[in-house]
């Protein structure tokens, strides 16, 4: 609780600084096109977007490395700013809270996993269980360098009021995107004429399955997390086989 309060109290001056800072920036932005000829006007904007993305990335990288080494709760935005080599105010330009940084990371996790399945030509004709395996494995691979933090975030996410919570607004959005993609994969592979309550519920259930798999992975002490691989493979083939039969 105390750390939360501290973080909140620190946030206020931060936010004020952000406002000032962004006002200054806006003024700059207005001034720029005047200095540059029209035909290359969009060039500096592109560069600025690039800069923005680079800073965002720097903040996320710094935050994750601190979450991993110091722990999520003990990490302050100040420390994140210091680690990223920028002013604390700049951090607030990009993320309101450290929970936002964590959520951004989870969005990246889901987006890259979806892309890795969608863009992999080898998976185009693969059976459903293989696609789902590739999806979950890609997520876990993305999370692997930050295992300690993921463990802490998992606990955080279970607290009802947590912004990281599985049922928080932003997390809901992320979940919809994920479930939507799983639905897509299932529609591709399952026979259309055999709709059953199971196929209707399956994508939502898969989200919960993923959380379970994550928990299994976190507790897996086998070398190379071999047991998680076996767990994913076995449980997915059973799950998909049940789904195809349309009944338990």
């Amino acid at each position, binding site marked *: 609780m105390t750390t939360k309060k501290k973080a909140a109290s620190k946030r206020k001056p931060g936010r004020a600084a952000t406002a000032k800072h962004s006002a200054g920036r806006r003024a700059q932005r207005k001034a720029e096109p005047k200095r540059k000829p029209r035909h290359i006007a969009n060039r500096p904007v592109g560069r600025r977007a690039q800069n923005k993305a680079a800073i965002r990335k720097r903040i996320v990288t710094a935050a994750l490395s601190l979450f991993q080494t110091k722990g999520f709760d003990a990490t302050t935005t100040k420390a994140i700013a210091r680690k990223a080599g920028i002013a604390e105010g700049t951090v607030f330009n990009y993320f309101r809270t450290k929970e936002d940084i964590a959520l951004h990371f989870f969005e990246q996790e889901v987006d890259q996993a979806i892309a890795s399945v969608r863009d992999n030509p080898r998976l185009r004709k693969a059976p459903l269980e293989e696609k789902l395996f590739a999806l979950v494995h890609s997520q876990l691979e993305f999370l692997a360098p930050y295992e300690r933090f993921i463990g802490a975030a998992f606990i955080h996410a279970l607290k009802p009021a947590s912004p990281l919570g599985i049922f928080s607004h932003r997390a809901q959005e992320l979940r919809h995107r994920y479930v939507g993609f799983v639905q897509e994969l299932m529609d591709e592979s399952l026979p259309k004429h055999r709709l059953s309550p199971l196929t209707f519920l399956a994508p939502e259930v898969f989200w919960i399955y993923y959380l379970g798999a994550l928990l299994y992975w976190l507790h897996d002490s086998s070398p190379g997390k*071999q047991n998680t691989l076996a767990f994913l493979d076995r449980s997915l083939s059973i799950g998909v086989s049940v789904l195809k039969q349309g009944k338990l």
Partner: protein
Amino acid sequence: MASMGAGIAGSYLGYLLQRAFLGEAKGKIKLKSTHTLAARRMADEMQALRGPAMKLGQMLSLQTGFLPDEVLAELATLQMEAPGMHPSLVRVQVKQSLGREPEEIFKQFTPEPFAAASLGQVHHAVTREGQRVAVKIQYPGIRRAIKNDFSLFRTFSKPAQASGHLPKSAIDEIEKQIVAETDYLREADNIEFLADRLAPLSFVKVPRVFREYSSDKVLTMSLMTGRHLEDFLAQRPSQKLRNQLGAHLFELFHFQVFKIEALHADPHWGNYLFNDDAGISLVDFGCVKYLSPESAAYLRSVCLYPGSTGSADFRRLLETYYEQVGEKLLPGARRALIGFADNFYRKVYPPKPEKQQLFDFGDAIFLRDFLRESKNLFRTKGVITEFIFMGRAEMGLYQTLHRLKARVPTSQIVKKFL
């Protein structure tokens, strides 16, 4: 938490049951039509329980005699199979093991397997140097799954252990050998060992290991030629060719026991490839049993024993050996051993063979004799743990010779090595 997933991923037995549930297990034991329906059903069930459970089950049924002989003989040649892996899992497994994806390592890699192997599957590939190879890849987490099963088995087999019907040393031996099969680096050592020692037998081919593409879970070997027993028999080979192959198999087995004192002890048919020039290619070396010098010496001394099996000298041979390995030879077991020698070995391996005397393995009576005498020996607690795997290999050899209907100059071949 670790035990939470035990049911689904932490048990080899669990895999096999799931395989049956998911309809993954395809092959069926080929039984002769003379078999009863009940025996067939039993065999199907045993089929679902391949692997460690099968080996244990086989041992138990040897004592209790609840399985028909023919099924028992078939069980000896079943393979320890793992669930199939889809290409994505194969890639993850190779990358984790060798650091790169198979497509990056090899010039060509076929993502679909061409064969099941003990605890994994085998893929075709071509190395950067253009060499065609077989890449054996292990199913994830199988070592721990097997260990879990054994600790469970130890718990519920306490009564059989206490009664001495299933000695702890026997379970230890089986576990040790099966767990060793999960280490492909050890298998690579086995291959190189046997390739070196089997060099005098020109009809045997052993693959070459590619160490740079191998790890404890991935094993890359040169691709071997030949056909599996079933396919070979389907070509209707001549009696002459079958006799030649039979003689080669017989020679290979006894050369290993008497000369190398170590043997390729997994008699699964997929492990032998037969060629039209009566050559034999060996392909799976997970289970290689190294014999102790005492055991090898004992086998040499009792094999083709010229005198009477009832003599004091023969009795002394048996007693000395049991003493050497720290076992007590009970009178019942001694009688069983002598019975084994009289009713089986003396028939198949006549001590004073006539010139060119052939033994006809096509006649099933010898197999029944072998199984009956084995059961006897088990019942009288006369089995030395060291021979558990060799006994299984021997049964596999006889079963294969029987399928080949080979006529083999048994004693002449063995004589060369004594």
